[in-house]
């Protein structure tokens, strides 16, 4: 069916408006990029908006030589990669049994897990548990307490439940065991949900802040979020630097705006780069045609 003239105009205007709305989400990022590459004087005068003014890469030079950002980046990658693998494995192993109707007591187990969404132990009790488990200053303190996000697990369970039981029957008849069914049938059919949850977990681990702040004592093991937050905060605490003896040292501790922007970029870019690669897994209709009548 061909669109009428009115409809055509509607779509054109609609697309423009939505494109502009989409762009507004991009502006802060573009602005941050512009600031990271701009001259300090131009930034302070507020002349930087969408493109760098007074091209300057000094922020990155001092970021990489003057702060432990490379180490922090490595730490962030370690936390994220291992964390995602552990969390995904645990989530799949939790979601699969409770998605099976034959599993005895699945209602009880499901409710018990949902319970943890509503009630949590609180910061200090959790800290005490982590401490008495000897996890202090170890990344396991970040991975273990948050190993399975109940919400993510429920999403996965629902997805598993929607796999037609005919597939199950068919594979059983062909002599498939429980484990083989999970690995060869369920998981390949669940790529969309696996990609989505990997991304969820990935973003959570990448952005993790408070647990690192609290459980990790060795500053050499901090991740990017804690490091950059520290750098930004130091600038807002000018007042206390007042009394440091060496006058020349005072200004030296002020982090320029461009350095902040550069730090933020280092945090944001990897996640941004990962998105397009996961995109291809968000394919709809994987299930289509898997059941032939």
């Amino acid at each position, binding site marked *: 069916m061909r669109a009428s003239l009115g409809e055509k105009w509607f779509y054109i205007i609609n697309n423009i408006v939505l494109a502009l709305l989409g762009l507004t989400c991009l502006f802060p990022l573009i602005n941050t990029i512009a600031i990271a590459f701009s001259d300090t004087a131009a930034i*302070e005068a507020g002349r930087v908006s969408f493109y760098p003014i007074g091209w300057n890469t000094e922020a990155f030079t001092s970021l990489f030589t003057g702060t432990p950002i490379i180490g922090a980046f490595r730490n962030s990658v370690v936390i994220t990669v291992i964390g995602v693998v552990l969390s995904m494995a645990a989530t799949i192993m939790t979601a699969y049994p409770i998605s099976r109707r034959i599993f005895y007591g699945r209602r009880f187990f499901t409710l018990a897990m949902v319970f943890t969404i509503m009630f949590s132990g609180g910061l200090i009790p959790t800290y005490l548990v982590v401490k008495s488990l000897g996890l202090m200053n170890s990344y396991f303190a970040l991975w273990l307490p948050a190993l399975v996000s109940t919400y993510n697990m429920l999403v996965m369970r629902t997805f598993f439940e929607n796999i037609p039981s005919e597939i199950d029957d068919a594979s059983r008849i062909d002599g498939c065991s429980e484990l083989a069914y999970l690995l060869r049938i369920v998981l390949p059919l669940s790529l969309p949900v696996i990609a989505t949850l990997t991304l969820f977990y990935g973003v959570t681990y990448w952005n993790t802040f408070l647990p690192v702040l609290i459980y990790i004592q060795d500053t050499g093991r901090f991740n990017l979020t804690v490091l950059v937050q520290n750098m930004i905060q130091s600038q807002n605490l000018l007042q*206390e630097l007042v009394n*440091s003896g060496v006058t020349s040292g*005072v200004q*030296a501790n002020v982090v320029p705006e461009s350095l902040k922007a550069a730090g933020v970029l280092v945090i944001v870019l990897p996640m941004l780069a990962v998105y397009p690669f996961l995109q291809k897994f968000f394919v709809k209709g994987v299930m289509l045609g898997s059941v032939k009548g």
Partner: protein
Amino acid sequence: MTKQRLVTGVLLFTMTGGVLLAGCSSKSDGAQSGTSGSNAEPKKDISVSIYDRGNVSPDEGTIENNRWTKWMNENGPANVKYVAIPRAKPEEKINVLYASGSAPDLLFEYSPKTKDTLQQQKQFMPIDELIDKYSTEYKKVLQDNPALKKAGSKSDGKLYYFGKINWVEPNRGLLIRTDWLKKLGLSVPQTTDELYNVLKAFAEQDPDGNGKKDTYGISLSSNSNFSLKQMFGATSKWVVKNNELALDWDRQKEYYTFAKRLYDEGLIDKDFTTDTNGAKAKQDFITGKVGIYGFLTSDVVTDTLMGTIDPLKKNVSGAEVAFMPYPKSPFGAFVPTFKNPVQMVAAISATAKNPEAVVKYIDFSLKDTTTKALDYGIEGTHYKMTDGCPEIMDAGKSKKQVADLTLDMRMLENIGISYNKCDVPMVAFKSDPRKDEYQNTYDSFRSTYMTFDRGYPELTHSEHMPTPPKDLNAVETNADKAVGDIWLKATVSGSKYSIEQAMKDAQDAWSKAGGAQVEDWYKKWYETDRSNSILADDIFDIAKKQNEQYKKIVQDMK
């Protein structure tokens, strides 16, 4: 059989080896304590907190393990384990450490609220006796400066906090565009009424001469707003009336009437509420859009001159500025708030196992040789002595290898006592061609604001205000927010919402939120603890003394 013998042999070998090693290490320990100090007893283990600002260069290690932590351990009286406290959210980390029983023996923290809360929970130990018994350096500072005792004692009369004497300078100030004044034929405003006229002229008479009405008098955000409020003595909600502490409404009313008028007539940027950190206000000032700018300063030369005045002059040719004293308000003329002369920065945790070693560590960190090393680094490597004053040789290297690492180890340094001719800008920047300009700026800043015939705008420095118990603290925070929201609404609502109505609503909101109990608590505190607290008079006393000291230093240099 042979196998068993072999195992025994290995075991024996390891044991003898272990003994040998142990012998070696104890020997070297002995040698170390022999060189470092008078007593031969082994160094004790203590833990000390240090802020982590995320600015340690990767070649230097980490904030808790670098050349200076090693230096402190080698030369100092104790084996110190440094515990990093992220500067971003210190209270969270500190609370968790204390709640879980893993507190550092010596806690360094600026915020009085964080410290007071812990103190109320009995997490710190009293230090009077410890100082008496084990301290020499800090004891002497304490005896020479009774204010330290006053500020560090709590309501049970015992001393809990270690503190330092700071070099008192104004903490805030106002910059005014004198070239605009000249152009419009105006003079520096002496009263708030005159200030209004100047602001009006700045906004309406096109002082930048570009033919457009695009300038503002001042800003109502952040520090400019704070200074404006301070002119009316309205930054604190407490005033003393008939020797009693009372909640103030008159000054608030007067100030908000003034602010509302500026808003209604468009003399300020009406978007001020979105400028929460004052970045827009600063930007407008350095691009020549605003005539008067209130600032908070850490150091008037490096912060205000280089950070605000220089960029302004670069952006706007012919721009001239001067420091402007606070104009006189109906409540009198005020100075801006000063830097805290007696600042409390440290406490010993109740869980500390070797408190005497902690006290000795503090003493060591106060020694002249220690402070000099932490300030300037190693002579010949980081600084050289010229005319009796240390001069940094390479600023970049010194920042990376010294300042970035030692800044928060020096939290107890008494700059207010040690201030000498080497710290005067003309000497501190002696190889800088602009040193005279720096000196003039510094002197003009001091002489504009260190005027002791004026009143102090608050009851005392905010760090010396007491911390109410937790529940009252929450009530106060909520009540303050409710009242603040009402005033803000009144400021921006034009004729729809009058200041009189707002004041009535604010008073209602205050009493509804339970403000009366907060009032009672503060009143009682003022009644009983006034004489044991650092109030505005004490601040003035120290400031006056230091001002004389400064004048003498400058005199001697001539």
